[in-house]
């Protein structure tokens, strides 16, 4: 399944070829490192799920992920122990995580999620630890935990942008902490300043430095041209060995008869592209599609022609070279299909208020709608057009609109390339600016271009912009059944990891339903208990010291964990991108910790009401044992989900999973 992505990216690191992914690089670098250390040579193609690994050494990478995944259990155990000071609560949490089939499955394969969750839980654990060191500030252990928090935050951010939520959690916690210190009048302002500085240093500067360093390593390691080039600007590409722009020498000024590629200046804008396919019926005129395409391709080549003269005299080698000047009226002919770039007053396929752009004409003869005025930003009339460096605008002569890329992805008929339109709104945006990237003209002398070298800060900024664009570009396609955030906590539907048919070895990512539903119920229960505790305290009811301690645990400890759950779950409702079931797992960790704390407190409350008789302890122990046994038994039932199933589907009574398909939406 997704091993094909991340395994492949691990290979890219080993081969040092440049690629593009929507996630920050740390997770894939670690996978690559693990593979490198365990002797994997980066040659396995990772083409489609289900391919056999054959002799390739993949165990290192899997083992690494599985190791990080198993670290989650002790982390959660220690966190809960620290928050609730109760061994049973911590044990319960640990049992839940050990016996959850979803967590097991997710950490068994080469995926980013175990790495992300490792750093995430690490950050939470160290945050809780340094909070409990608050009584001896500036001691060695306080410093260690504080800086460890910072390191883990950087790690979480570096694996996936979801790490941002845990940064938020730690940030809120720190603000609360500082506010507390500020109210403590026994501390002088100088001491408070020290506290503030220490936190700024460890929680802001340190993670930032690490994060930047991570990208520095990323760009140093990947110095060869690879499949991700097209996503980046021309300047960026000139840094990559093997790219056609690396140490390139091309003619400096644009001339008629040149073969060029045009790149949109929008971050992650594509090349102007066309292909034999026509726009489908009902979408403007049925002429040839013109799109923006992110990859390098022969169909990106265009020939620059004069608007009024023929092809013939330009191909004649003896004729003098004529340069294109600012304000000239030109015609762009697509090299492969010999059609002209054309626009007319039909509405564009997606952006209805813009005009459609098509390829029109046969062998270069079209009509007056093929004429474009070329203008260089910030230049006067008559100046020449520079390749790569000039920012160019193409104005359609007949309608006065400007050629631009709207950034929206076309449906299947357009091969999911990006829409190109002619916008009648004359706003100055990078969407409507282009530069010439490749430039082939045998009649002109080549010059070398080293001027473009971008600084590291620019590279960092650009790669982030590209990643954010890429992330928001992962839109669900029409009619595709996608996973909705509300499916997740109820364990509505899993993810098929491998194997579809009866004879395959099938692994299905699905949480242990007993545990997940227990978590769900606990959330409601927690809210009830917390609300009643808060009201009781607010009403000023006198409590024993034991109960006071319990209510502190439930409100403060539980509150922190609940906040973590909220932060890792609710933002998904607002995301427009494609969502998957496994996005819920960080939130699930918090939910499990909450379960541990809540049940322990609940049982203790029950025991407290029964005290001081001996039944109190019995009730407490029995309740705890029942929960643990329930979890273990359910794991016994569902363990084939993660360790693989062979044989008939669960709908068949002879299957080992028969009778366990409690919801119709589960597919095993």
């Amino acid at each position, binding site marked *: 399944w997704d091993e094909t992505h991340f395994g492949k990216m691990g290979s890219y690191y080993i081969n040092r070829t440049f690629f593009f992914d929507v996630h920050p690089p740390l997770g894939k670098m670690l996978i690559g490192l693990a593979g490198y250390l365990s002797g994997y040579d980066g040659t396995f193609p990772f083409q489609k799920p289900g391919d056999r690994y054959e002799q390739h050494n993949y165990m290192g990478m899997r083992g690494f992920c599985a190791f990080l995944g198993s670290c989650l259990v002790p982390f959660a155990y220690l966190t809960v122990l620290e928050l609730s000071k109760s061994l049973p609560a911590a044990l319960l949490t640990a049992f839940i995580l050990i016996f959850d089939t979803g967590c097991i499955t997710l950490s068994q394969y080469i995926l980013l999620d175990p790495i992300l969750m490792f750093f995430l839980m690490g950050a939470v654990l160290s945050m809780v630890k340094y909070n409990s060191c608050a009584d001896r500030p500036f001691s060695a252990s306080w410093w260690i935990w504080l800086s460890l928090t910072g390191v883990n935050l950087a790690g979480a951010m570096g694996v996936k942008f979801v790490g941002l939520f845990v940064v938020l959690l730690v940030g809120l916690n720190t603000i609360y902490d500082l*506010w507390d210190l*500020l*109210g403590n*009048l026994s501390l002088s*302002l100088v001491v408070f300043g020290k506290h503030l500085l220490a936190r700024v240093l460890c929680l802001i500067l340190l993670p930032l430095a690490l994060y930047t360093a991570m990208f520095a390593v990323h760009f140093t390691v990947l110095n060869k041209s690879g499949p991700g080039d097209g996503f980046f600007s021309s300047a960026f590409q000139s840094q990559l060995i093997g790219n056609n722009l690396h140490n390139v020498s091309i003619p400096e000024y644009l001339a008629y008869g040149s073969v060029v590629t045009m790149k949109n200046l929008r971050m992650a804008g594509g090349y102007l592209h066309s292909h034999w396919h026509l726009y*489908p*019926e*009902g*979408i403007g005129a049925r002429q040839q599609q013109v799109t923006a395409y992110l990859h390098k391709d022969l169909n990106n080549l265009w020939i620059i022609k004069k608007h009024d003269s023929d092809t013939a005299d330009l191909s004649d080698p003896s004729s003098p070279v004529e340069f294109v000047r600012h304000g000239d009226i030109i015609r762009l002919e697509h090299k492969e299909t010999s059609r002209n770039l054309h626009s007319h007053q039909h509405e564009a396929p997606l*952006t*209805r*208020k*813009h005009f459609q752009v098509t390829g029109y004409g046969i062998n270069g003869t079209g009509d007056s709608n093929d004429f474009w005025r070329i203008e260089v930003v910030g230049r006067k009339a008559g100046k020449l057009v520079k390749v790569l460096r000039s920012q160019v605008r193409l104005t359609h002569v007949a309608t006065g609109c400007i050629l631009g890329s709207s950034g929206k992805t076309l*449906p*299947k*008929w357009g091969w999911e390339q990006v829409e190109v339109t002619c916008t009648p*709104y004359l706003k100055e945006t990078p969407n409507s600016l282009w530069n010439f990237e490749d430039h082939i003209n045998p009649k002109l002398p080549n010059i070398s271009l080293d001027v473009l070298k971008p600084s590291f800060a620019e590279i960092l900024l650009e790669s982030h912009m590209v990643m954010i664009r890429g992330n928001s570009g992962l839109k669900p396609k*029409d*009619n595709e*059944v996608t996973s909705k955030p509300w499916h997740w906590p109820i364990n509505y*539907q899993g993810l098929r990891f491998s194997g579809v048919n009866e004879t395959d070895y099938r692994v299905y990512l699905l949480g242990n339903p007993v545990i997940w539903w227990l978590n769900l119920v606990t959330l409601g229960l927690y809210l009830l208990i917390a609300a009643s505790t808060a*009201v009781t305290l*607010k*009403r*000023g009811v006198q409590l024993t010291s034991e109960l006071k301690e319990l209510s502190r645990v439930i409100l403060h400890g539980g509150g922190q964990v609940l906040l973590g759950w909220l932060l890792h779950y609710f933002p998904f409702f*607002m995301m*427009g991108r494609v969502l998957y079931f496994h996005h819920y797992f960080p939130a699930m960790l918090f939910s499990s910790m909450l379960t541990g704390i809540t049940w322990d407190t609940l049982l203790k409350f029950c025991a407290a009401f029964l005290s001081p008789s001996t039944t109190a302890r019995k009730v407490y122990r029995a309740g705890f044992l029942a929960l643990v046994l329930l979890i273990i038994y359910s794991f016994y039932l569902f363990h084939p989900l993660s360790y693989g199933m062979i044989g008939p589907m669960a709908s068949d009574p002879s299957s080992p999973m028969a009778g366990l398909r409690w919801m119709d*939406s589960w*597919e095993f």
Partner: protein
Amino acid sequence: MLGFLKKPVVVTAEINVNVVALTVMGLISRLWGLSYPRAVVFDEVYYGQFISLYMKRIFFVDDSGPPLGHMLLALGGYLGGFDGNFLWNRIGAEYSTNVPVWSLRLLPALAGALCVPLAYQILVELQLSHCAALGAALLILFENSLITQSRFMLLESVLIFFILLAVLSYLKFYNVQRHSSFSGSWWFWLLLTGAACSCAVGVKYMGLFTYMLLLAMAGLHFWHMIGDQNISNVSLMCHFLARGLALVIIPMAMYLSFFYVHLALLYRSGPHDQIMTSAFQASLEGGLARITQGQPLEVAYGSQITLRNVLGKPVQCWLHSHTNTYPIRYENGRGSSHQQQVTCYPFKDVNNWWIVKDPGMQQLVVSNPPRPVRHGHIVQLVHGITTRYLNTHDVAAPLSPHSQEVSCYIDYNISMPAQNLWRVEILNRESDTDVWKTILSEVRFVHVNTSAVLKARGFIGASLPEWGYRQLEVVGEKLAKGYHQSMVWNVEEHRYGKSQEQKEREVELHSPTQMDISKNLSFMAKFSELQWKILTLKTEDTEHKYSSSALDWITMDTNIAYWLHPTSGAQIHLLGNVVTWTSANVAALGYVCLSLWYLIRRRRKIYDIPEGAWQLWVSAGGLCLGGWAVNYLPFFLMEKTLFLYHYLPALTFQILLIPVVLQHLSEHLCRSLLLKSMFSALIVAWFSSIYFVYRTFSPVTYGEPSLSVTELKALRWKDSWNILIRKQ
């Protein structure tokens, strides 16, 4: 008994001249020359068509919001005797004489005018001085953008009116609460809060933000009550229930009632019918109801039916077949079964008719008594005109190779047996033995041999090439994950087949259906369907010449041209009072900074201002700044097309913040007498500048007098403003 006679009957009337004067000024400023221009101004072109539809009682769906706002506008039209006959097709079109422009524009203008005294009252209730309250009202009065927006058939002024009313009545309620709980006025203001909230939500969904703010405030105040140990548990419970009733239950009921009135008013079928389900369409007069009226309810073996795909997007379509076959080889070289095509066809056609057949019997007529088809029954579907069986098999579908091809079976004797058994699954069944009902039942057809599900792939780009006449593709979906509307069908037209012979049956299929029984949906079913459609219907993400981003609004970097006189330079723009907007921003910034300063100082136990002043500062400022934040910040998360007028509710709250900050400054920061008088002088100067700007921009606010080119150029204070200058 007659004791009351012993005392004289006295009526004392207390008239706050301030309020009266403000109301009069508000009315003058909003109602002045209301019917000018007699032409369609900006979004009137949009709301106007709905008013016309209300007048004609024709059903429509508007995805922009709930119906109360449209109904209020239509009320104006009703009172003015509008007959709905006007073609709302372009901005700037002259109104014909039958359009009562004045009364149509009256309600929004009244609402806008009443905002002025409301602002005054709110600040008074927040315990600010009358001077500050007067200032707030004047700021609202001289705000050009609010004036422009309330003078036309637009909803923002109505929304702002209800929002302010809700805030005011909550504050009144809260102040009454201090001395007399559960008194008459206590109940009145509490109920009014709920009612105003639901009206605000009913006008535009933006009202939800303020509703949430008030709920949060009510929650906070109640939380403080919990801490008060003088209140018994029982009375606490009563308080809680009263608030729940007035602030949650009643608003919900009112919201429902808006839809009830809406649906009661609009009973004729109209242009948006096809978005709704067949059941809904059948409940409207005309349209589908005319056809389906009197159809038999229960589908039986032998029934002749048309099957509509429930998705209905982008076009509604019916299961269809015709004599043409799939090409032997597609363009990309894949092969097909070469059997008869099955498609989904967006038009009514005789080829949309299918006959439900019992696999065990040969006959194609309904027996007497009819044997109804139930959930789980296995049926065959016979195409009426060609009498071929609906079939699917393990052949890749023409456009989506991952799914199975669906065809009408032709026996070519090439070891491709017929696989034409389908299991009927009724999705909205109440029990497992439910009968398949016309229109009402949502049905899934599961293929018995392969368990594929019949599915229409009805989005743009899924239409078949020339050989399939560009009809939509129908496939058997093997991996039917969960529920998706494209896999659900319902019977639309239905009759019991009577003719045994193929020739007779063709005649029968061509004849229109008629029979007995009519059915009606309950109000709740209609409401939930309409509500769901309003929330999920996505109009195309359009770009507009005057659309702007939320960030442009604070600094007013954008404007909207509402109307331009066809010959002269007279024009109307949505353009705010620059001084007010700037001072509102400064006030908000100042409030935040000062609050942080006070907060941190208080944390260190340094009290700069008396406790009462601090409470006032927090409560008044918190409300105004909170109102601004909840009405503004959510727009950063929205993906729809945004316009400057979306900012007006937030702006209103922000304007209310100015006097709060000013009063605080003059009372607590200007300590010497000299400073105080200087401050007052400054305020006076500032107010005159606001009035000056209001006067300067009033030609583009009211649309008259017409300005010359140089005057217009002089008005263009910001380069990003789009003032229309006619070329000579």
